[in-house]
């Protein structure tokens, strides 16, 4: 570290904050990707009900 800092470096807290954000957002993204794959698969396999209506 350059000169003796007046305030402690606290890099731990900074990394923790960004790390947590990465984990949370990354986890949510992975969940969305998984859900999307499942929904697409279920959607393609599902025979369209007779005369599927356009959403009202």
């Amino acid at each position, binding site marked *: 570290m350059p000169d003796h800092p007046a305030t*402690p470096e606290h890099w731990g*807290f*900074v990394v923790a904050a960004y790390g947590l954000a990465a984990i949370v957002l990354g986890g949510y993204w992975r969940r969305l990707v998984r859900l999307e794959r499942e929904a697409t698969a*279920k*959607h393609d396999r599902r025979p369209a009900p007779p005369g599927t209506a356009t*959403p009202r």
Partner: protein
Amino acid sequence: MWFSTGSRGLTRVLGWLAALGLLAGLVLALGVAPREVSQGNVQRIMYLHVPSILTAYLAFAIVLVASLGYLVSRRQAWDRWAGSAAEIGTLFTGLTLASGSLWGKPTWGTWWTWDARLTATAVMFVTYVAYLMLRGMIDEAERRAQLAAVLGILAALNIPLVHFSVLWWRTLHQPPTLLRPVPAALAGIFRLTLGVNWVAFTLLFAYLLAKRIRVGRLSEAGLP
């Protein structure tokens, strides 16, 4: 809604843009931006904390508009926007609280301070968690959409009330802390870093929203 009518290509582009933005923001926040004089390194958490809350406000504004849209048109697409935006908005509000707490520990010595802005964010968080619980507890799509729309409007209009009541509740005892969005005397580099991160977060929000809406539409697509 052009946005959610399956333009997968656009969503993927959005995803890459968000990723690039986040990377640039991270490099700026942790590397390029100098250590802030008075607060020290921990001030770097600001580049995460402020964009999170701004994105959350954007999300809840969308919930308000989409809820009004649903009540007027009764089209399910509006409800999907409201539900998806609320879910992601709550996520970003949670991140705001977490980063605020991680910022508070070295600065205040405590994980949580009843600082006006943090308190207002916490109230908003529990309000929208309750919104998500309401959505989770109602199975019939139309009924869920109706009730969620009413709560989506009430919760949004309540935000200013919460803001002022918490502000007065705290200010009489203690002036609001330095966690103001953009500290007045911010040099260019600080402002740039904050700006880039804000744009990156907004892009990320848009990307996640598009994906979440698509999931919602696909899982309901089987229904006439």
